């Protein structure tokens, strides 16, 4: 019966000899160690003991041999599966048989838990500010780190409450709320400003957790803390810097910005928001696309390209652009940007933005003024030139036209050819007279009801020879009249100049087509001269109507043609503009319609 009890028991039991061999070993023990009973009985059990524990086991066996009972002796055994078990022994020497009667317990699991707890405890108390208090908040344990940060010795802290380090920064309610939380068994977390022994303050991120006893009642509190003083100071410093930056920006009207390439997020200073008239949203930053939308349609492609170049190639930029605020206001801004590198890669762009609206307007006004004064100086010079050459031209011209007339009256020659000579003389005379437009006093030539269609035909007949010489086609069709109030010769000169320019433009192109069109719109009469000459540079478009601006080489142009055209056009209350088409340029002149009986001045 004892034999059966011996084997059924969950306790580990064995009988061993003092020379170190198992004589009897129960099933539970056999199962734990994993060897067969025969193997266990065949060899000394010391073979199974962990090498580090052999000496103390031998010593313990000598104590047993001397009649001393063993209570809670612990050693480690190596099992068949290679694992190690902690075993706690209770053994006694049977004086009758001189054998060791032993019971034992596998305490491996408890041992591991205790060991892990100890490691954790060590880790926490060595690396995190650690305090333990009783339920009333009286400090019972502190670690070196707490002593170090607070400036107090351990004995100055133990037995006291946290009032020792109270900085007075926090309200009564703050602590009341903390106590309410931890008393109810919850964990409380927040940043606390405490005071050192020397009176200075430090900030800790605190976790206060209640420790519960077996009944679930709070028996102690543990507080873990981390010093975040530097972080807080850094944050305060950053904020201060940002405040100063914003203030500086506001005074200088310069905003700052940064673009994070990976996310497209934009960071703007307050002044940038102000300059662009964008409402600052708390916490939310604008993204790149929103930022780019804040420019006028005309300038958006420019900033798009600049930002793209900077992001991809690191090309810095500095631009004066028109921004379009969300309220639809157009504003001149100066903005620059440069790439910022990290590990050889561009990770962000940053730069400034400046409100230059007033400055820019003043500059544009100044430029315009200057242009105007240069222009009027040019006109004055031209006027003087005209006056001095007029006499020289008009005399020989008088001779040509005089003789032509005389020959015509004598009636013995081809009258048409003489007409052409006389008409040409008229034209030259008129141009010389027209040069006077540029000088101060001039009586404007009389205007009458004229047919633009007829004028175009006249102009084509005079320019056709030159166009043919350059293999250019002139194309015009009209079967009706287009009346405007104007001067026939002047308007003819306009058309001649435009056709001649078109001939020059198409001369070196494979396709040499010049088309003239007259359109009667509801509001005006439009004359278009369209060529296939490749078009006009944008930069030139603005200046091309000024005198002396020419793209032609020295002997081919005076640079006066288009300025004369504009002068005449404006004198006719008409407007001229030029656009590039797919293959060339299109000049469009819009004349007010001739109204019968109206005062055309």
């Amino acid at each position, binding site marked *: 019966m004892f034999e059966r009890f011996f084997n059924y028991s969950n306790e580990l039991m064995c009988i061993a000899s003092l020379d170190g061999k198992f004589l009897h070993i129960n099933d539970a023990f056999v199962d734990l160690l994993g060897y067969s009973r025969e193997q266990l009985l065949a060899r000394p059990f010391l073979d199974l003991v962990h090498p580090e524990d052999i000496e103390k086991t031998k010593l313990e066996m000598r104590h047993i041999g001397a009649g001393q009972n063993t209570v809670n002796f612990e050693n480690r055994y190596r099992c068949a599966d290679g694992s190690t078990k902690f075993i706690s022994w209770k053994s006694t020497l049977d004086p009758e048989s001189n054998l060791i009667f032993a019971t034992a317990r596998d305490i491996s699991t408890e041992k591991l838990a205790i060991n892990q707890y100890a490691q954790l405890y060590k880790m926490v108390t060595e690396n995190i500010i650690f305090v333990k208090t009783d339920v009333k908040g009286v400090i019972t344990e502190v670690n070196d780190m707490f002593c170090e940060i607070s400036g107090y010795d351990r004995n100055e802290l133990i037995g006291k409450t946290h009032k020792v380090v109270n900085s007075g920064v926090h309200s009564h309610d703050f602590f009341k709320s903390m106590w309410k939380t931890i008393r109810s068994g919850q964990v409380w977390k927040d940043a606390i400003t405490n005071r050192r022994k020397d009176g200075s303050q430090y900030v800790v991120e605190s976790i206060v957790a209640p420790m519960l006893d077996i009944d679930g009642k709070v028996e102690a509190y543990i507080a873990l803390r981390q010093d975040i003083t530097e972080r807080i100071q850094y944050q305060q410093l950053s904020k201060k810097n940002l405040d100063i930056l914003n203030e500086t920006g506001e005074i200088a009207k310069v905003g700052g910005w940064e673009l994070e390439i990976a996310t497209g997020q934009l960071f703007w200073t307050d002044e940038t928001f102000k300059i662009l008239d964008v409402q600052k949203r708390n916490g939310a930053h604008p993204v790149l696309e929103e930022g780019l939308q804040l420019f006028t349609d005309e300038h958006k492609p420019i900033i798009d390209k600049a930002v793209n170049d900077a992001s991809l190639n690191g090309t810095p930029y500095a631009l004066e652009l028109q921004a379009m605020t969300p309220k639809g206001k157009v504003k001149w801004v100066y903005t620059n940007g440069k790439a910022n590198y990290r590990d050889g890669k561009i990770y962000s762009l940053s730069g400034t933005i400046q409100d230059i609206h007033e400055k820019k307007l003043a500059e544009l006004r100044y430029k315009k003024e200057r242009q105007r004064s240069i222009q009027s100086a040019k006109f004055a010079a031209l006027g003087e030139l005209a*006056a001095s050459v007029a006499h020289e031209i*008009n005399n020989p011209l*008088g001779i040509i036209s005089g003789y032509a007339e005389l020959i015509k009256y004598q009636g013995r020659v081809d009258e048409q050819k003489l007409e052409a000579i006389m008409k040409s003389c008229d034209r030259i005379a008129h141009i010389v*007279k027209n040069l006077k437009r540029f000088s101060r006093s001039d009586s404007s030539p009389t205007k009458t009801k004229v047919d633009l269609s007829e004028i175009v035909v006249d102009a084509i007949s005079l320019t056709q020879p030159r166009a043919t010489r350059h293999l250019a086609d002139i194309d015009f069709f009209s079967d009706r009249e287009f009346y405007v109030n104007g001067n026939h010769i002047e308007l003819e000169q306009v058309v001649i100049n435009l056709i001649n320019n078109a001939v020059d433009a198409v001369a070196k192109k494979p396709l040499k087509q010049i088309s003239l069109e007259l359109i009667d719109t509801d509001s005006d009469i439009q004359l278009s001269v369209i060529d296939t000459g490749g078009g006009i540079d944008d930069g030139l478009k603005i200046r091309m109507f000024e005198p002396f601006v020419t793209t032609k080489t020295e002997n081919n142009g005076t640079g006066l043609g288009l300025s004369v055209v504009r002068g005449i056009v404006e004198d006719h209350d008409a407007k001229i503009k030029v656009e590039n088409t797919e293959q060339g340029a299109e000049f469009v002149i819009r004349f007010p319609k001739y109204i019968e009986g109206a005062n055309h001045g």
Partner: protein
Amino acid sequence: MANLVYIDDEVYLTDIFHSLFKDTFHELHTFNDEYEAIEHCLSNPPDILFVDYRLKRMRGDEVAQRIPKDVHIILVTGDVQIDTDYQFDGVIAKPFKLVQLLHTVDGFTGH
């Protein structure tokens, strides 16, 4: 019938003038030298004097001032702007139409 004088340093222009009026009933004198012309006009005042502005040595208005007051003096000029205080009886711009000369003469002779 009127007595006409034209002073111009351009020989061809005086020739045109001459050709235009030679078959009319008008008495006709043309000069390329202003001094000769003035001398002629003082001894033989014309009805109408056509005078160029820029002559060899003098200006048209200077010539006009030396001519008897009752002569109608017409300035014939290629200049676009004349700076003078002299009040001419008419101005014809060069290049002139022959008809302008004829009309001017007609105008002063009452035709």
